[in-house]
């Protein structure tokens, strides 16, 4: 099963193309079947994965354009493995929970193509192939938002596309720059990230490249002040779009930082911890406030995503294994939790066709199951211990504390402000008397919705209590990363900041 990664990438593609032949009344089942197979394949990948090996596994390399150093080069390590699994899972959940009748065939096929792009991004070790999937992921998302979205869907979709497109093009220049530097050093062209890792660049160069990549990733994350596309995208996207956008697409940005910025430019990353952290802090605090001011439930969650992504960034730039592991775990947890929250908002929207909090109130007595699951996800979102949200948030903060206690305290306000907006949302929506007659007869969650949500609840609790099977492989790869960065860094400050862990662990 050495080429399981290729199967993972191309199975949905083939399935998507063949999907055109499937009758539109049966396409839902087709979609669920394909997504399930893909999910099982990704679980199988986990089975086959050697958790004690911190390096890249299942490496496949086929030269595509040898003269220009482009090759189909894919592999996974602990860092990407679980994001892939999450991507397949969230796609499956998204398709299960799908509640759209219009053009469903197109939607399902588009989702499958999107899955290709998502998995492609996380398995690619060739910058151009990475970029290819990265850019290509925009297209299905554009279609999903634009075709099945709300009133201002076109504005939102186009904004999403152009914003990320512009950012990633700047990143492309950075990639070409690195490629040329590699070429001038080694005499051969290569876009393989592992080759690039070996490049030790002077700080002067690193700093420009760092910012070039930064822009690409920051827009995707999205970091303040590049975040304004996100509320529109989320606000207008159909549920499944929001779920995948929040769960997976945003993670591409933070994953990019871990995969590219840190190991390639350790010195610049360290040198710019402060500016990046300050942006992240603004994300955390400012967007939490903005979230508090929202009137639309979905917008609250959209802004809360930005806020949480700030914590992920903080963790990533902690430059120690605790922080980076935490940030990657937080990516997973945020993916699952925000995905679930979007699903939940989607189900109420399906019932009432509004997401305004003022329209609701007292839902807890009308829809207890809904309120329960919402409550669990809310608690996970605010980082309650023993839910998935705590582990990552705690590790990210603890990691960054080593870098700057003061900023960590400020970043830590996310646990307060997060509680403020989330609880306010919950109070306004679920508590109080049922004042609106339209809410009195609302149906509680149906079987389909429960099928989608209950596994997520299970994961939220399972990984909150026993994160070890996931945490250890991530941690092993991150430790390898940090020690590599430490080795590579040449400025004294970077050497001092990047911590190398001493302990190694295994999942039994």
């Amino acid at each position, binding site marked *: 099963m050495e080429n399981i990664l290729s199967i993972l990438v191309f199975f949905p593609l083939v399935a998507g193309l063949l999907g055109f032949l499937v009758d539109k009344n049966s396409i839902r089942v087709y979609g669920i079947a394909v997504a399930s197979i893909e999910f099982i394949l990704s679980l199988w990948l986990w089975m086959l994965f050697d958790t004690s090996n911190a390096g890249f596994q299942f490496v496949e390399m086929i030269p*595509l*354009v*040898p*003269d*220009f150093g*482009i090759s189909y080069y894919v592999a996974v390590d602990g860092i990407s493995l679980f994001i892939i699994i999450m991507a397949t899972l969230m796609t499956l959940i998204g398709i299960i929970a799908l509640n759209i009748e219009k*053009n469903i065939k*197109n939607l399902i096929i588009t989702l499958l193509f999107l899955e290709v792009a998502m998995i492609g991004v996380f398995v690619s070790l060739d910058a*151009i192939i990475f*970029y*290819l999937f990265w*850019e*290509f992921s*925009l*297209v299905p998302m*554009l*279609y999903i938002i*634009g*075709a099945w979205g709300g009133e201002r*869907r*076109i504005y939102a*979709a*186009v904004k999403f*596309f*152009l914003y990320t*497109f*512009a950012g990633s*093009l*700047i990143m*492309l*220049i950075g990639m*070409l*720059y690195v*490629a*040329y*530097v590699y*070429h*001038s050093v080694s005499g051969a062209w290569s876009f393989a990230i592992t080759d690039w890792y070996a490049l030790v660049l002077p700080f002067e160069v690193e700093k*420009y490249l760092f910012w070039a990549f930064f822009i690409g990733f920051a827009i995707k994350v999205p970091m303040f002040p590049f975040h304004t596309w996100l509320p529109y995208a989320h606000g207008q996207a159909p549920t499944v779009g929001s779920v995948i956008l929040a769960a997976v697409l945003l993670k591409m940005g933070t994953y990019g930082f871990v995969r590219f910025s840190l190991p390639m430019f350790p010195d610049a990353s360290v040198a710019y911890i402060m500016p990046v952290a300050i942006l992240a802090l603004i994300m955390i605090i400012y967007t939490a406030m903005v979230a508090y001011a929202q009137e639309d439930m979905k917008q609250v969650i959209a802004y809360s995503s930005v806020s949480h992504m700030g914590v992920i960034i903080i963790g990533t730039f902690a430059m120690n294994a605790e922080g980076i592991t935490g940030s990657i775990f937080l990516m997973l947890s945020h993916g699952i939790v925000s995905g679930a929250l979007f699903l939940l908002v989607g189900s109420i929207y399906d019932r009432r066709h509004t997401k305004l909090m003022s329209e609701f109130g007292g839902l807890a007595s009308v829809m207890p199951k809904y309120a329960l699951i919402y409550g669990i996800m809310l608690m996970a979102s605010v980082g309650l211990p023993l839910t998935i949200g705590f582990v990552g948030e705690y590790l990210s903060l603890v990691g960054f504390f080593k870098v700057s206690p003061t900023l960590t305290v400020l970043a830590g306000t996310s646990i307060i402000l997060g509680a403020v907006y989330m609880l306010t949302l919950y109070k306004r929506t679920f508590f109080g008397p049922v004042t609106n007659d339209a809410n009195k007869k609302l149906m509680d969650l149906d079987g389909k919705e429960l099928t989608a949500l209950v596994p997520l609840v299970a994961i939220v609790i399972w990984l909150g209590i026993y994160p070890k099977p996931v945490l250890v492989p991530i941690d092993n790869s991150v430790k390898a990363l940090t020690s590599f960065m430490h080795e590579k860094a040449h400025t004294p400050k970077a050497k001092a900041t990047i911590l190398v862990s001493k302990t190694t662990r295994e999942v039994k």
Partner: protein
Amino acid sequence: MLEPISVSLESLNLITLSPMLIAIGGALLILIIDLFKSDLDKTLYVILTMLILFVDFGATYSLAINERGFFDLMLIDGIAVVSQLIILIASLLFVPLALTASNKRFHEYSYPEYFALFLFMVAGFQFMVATDNLILMFVGLETASLSLYTLIAMHNTRGAHEAAIKYFTMGALAAGFFLMGSAVIYATTGSVELYEVAKILQSQMDKTGFMISALGGVVLMLVAVGFKVSLFPFHMWTPDVYEGSSAPMAGYMSIVPKLAMVVVAMRIFGVYINLDIQAVSYIIIIIAVITMTLANMMALVQNDVKRMLAYSSISHAGFVMAALALGTTKGNSSIFLYYGFFLITNLGAFAMLWISRHKKKSHHERYDHPFSKFAGMVSKSPMAAVIMAVFMLSLAGVPPFSLFWGKLYLISSVVDYGVATDEMKYIVLAIVMVLNSAIAAYYYLKLIVYMFLLSPSEDETVVYANQSRPLNVIIGILAVTTILSILYVQPLMEFVTYLVSSSGY
């Protein structure tokens, strides 16, 4: 009396002339056939033209490179071959677009002269790129241009007439500038042959007047080049002419005349750039940046797809010129690569417009292809909408579609140059280029938005009135090559780079 001159036939290396002679001969053949029997169907001529072009292609392909012929007048180097090949491929794809649904739909295809003129034009372009003699360049250019004016006018609509007259008049003015530029070069160096020019310029590098003449020549030449390649502010004919002429012709014009002129520019400006006269690079870069930026912005606000594509092709020309200013092998190869990919995509896009062409302007009083015509296409004919979207995404530079690779390589060449010379300016140029790509993405998206995201208009007229099997085949070929470009990037890159580098560009 004078001594008779004896010239051996071998020294003439007549083979270098063969591709053009085939085209000219073919044109004459068509004229003769028409002379004998006048009511033959256009399909005959289409296929005949394709065959001739095919033979021409073969002849070009088999040319040995870095050969001179006919008293050193003909120059078959790498870029001559590669540009001719691209021109011929574009022509081969263009001609069958005449095979629209019914026999006598559009004016120009009703006359065999159209095909003859087309072949003459191809020959003209081939002459243009296969020489480094300014005279032959000029004569080739004019032959091609005069044919082209006529071909445009033969579409015989009000727009076509207007387009032809605009193009013609501006072309005449541009020719004047070309001539004055040549005169300056000739005055400076006493030669109209570029290799000779280069030699003399090199020996004059330290002269005070040199810079003036160099820049003067460049400026005047650049007006002419700018006109043909459509650089700001010499681009003004482009949108009008594209709008007025038939869609395939517009698509063709966005590639072939431009490419031919780019080759000429490469030869002329290459002389200066190779002498490391940086000012020339700067002029070209500045004009290229202005071109791509302004054209993009104007494309943004268009209401007609064809006109939008016209502006977009102006912007692409700006891209190409930026790479040209580098004077590196990679830069020059990237230009051909870019045009190769651009050819596939852009011709595809225009072909899609072509099959949607109505004789009556049903959706807009002026435009043939207003955006609103494509509203909700995905529900009317999903396959066509998807194909058009692929072309648009490719134009926007979204991977993995073909133009992405062209863009990648082209920007890479700019970045390389910047890194190699340690000049931040070139990195900034690259950033400007990518930002322009991002702006450009907006208007390409606009069409996608219309096709996929908006609901169809009430108007139930069929959009693809011009559809026919040959057109479908052509579009299919173009779409497949656009989508699967990753599979042939490597050989293409290898081939182009080999040809370009082997002749020292």
